């Protein structure tokens, strides 16, 4: 996989989320991603960035345009230094939430992207990486 562009955005408050979503849209538009795929990617990002703010106390996002077998895609990394997730398998289940939400955030985000990776260590933080390919189904 080749990284074609890379930038970082710090997310510390809710208003940063709007800027972050707009930036993803710009990148997705740049590689010619369809509107439906863009919407899925941005919605997934919106879920993950909320988790980062709510449970991780904010963090750093990384936005990249990547390419594999000459197919472009957008890769997003969400890294926080919050309390981490005790049981990642449980957190990935539909309807599970430690907060008052619907518990759709993590599993929903996973369904909306092509590649999804989550690493979490209690006490150290959580890092989620997602990729949506331009023509990915």
């Amino acid at each position, binding site marked *: 996989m080749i990284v074609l562009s890379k930038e970082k955005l710090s997310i510390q408050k809710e208003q940063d*989320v709007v800027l972050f979503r707009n930036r993803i849209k710009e990148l997705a538009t740049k590689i010619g991603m369809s509107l439906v795929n*863009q919407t899925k990617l941005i*919605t997934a990002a919106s879920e993950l960035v909320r988790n980062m703010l709510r449970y991780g106390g904010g963090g750093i996002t990384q936005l990249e345009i990547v390419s594999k077998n000459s197919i472009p895609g957008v890769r997003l990394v969400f890294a926080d230094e919050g309390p981490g997730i005790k049981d990642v398998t449980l957190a990935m289940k539909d309807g599970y939430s430690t907060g008052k939400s619907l518990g759709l*955030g993590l599993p*929903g985000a996973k369904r*909306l992207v092509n590649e999804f990776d989550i690493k979490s260590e209690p006490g150290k933080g959580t890092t989620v990486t997602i990729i949506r390919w331009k023509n990915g189904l």
Partner: protein
Amino acid sequence: MERIPILKMGPFLLVTIQVDLYDRLALTLENDLINMVSKTEAKGVLIDISAVSIVDSFMGRILGNIASMSKIMDAATVVVGMQPAVAITLVELGLTLAGVHTALDVEQGMELLRNKIGQLDTDEEGLYDSFI
């Protein structure tokens, strides 16, 4: 603080969301709307989301909350103008917006509301689909 305006049109309240929502703005809207329903004794609430490009689980939940709260306050809620990409994404996300009435545009939404409060015949009810 940023706010989304709520317009009163006869027995209905009309909200057109022209900006992309963030959580606090959505919560403020929920609060303002319920207060307005109580203050104006509105019989229906119409929310136009045609300019909204992203509805995630939080905003979906707010829409559901508004519908449930309005129902308890004896007002019907219709969400209109959802973009196709948003609808596809919502269902894949796992959010079905059960209990929220929808219509394709403001006009149809208004008619649905009028039907709901019984000002019109119910002949045309088949035209409107609930978001399953």
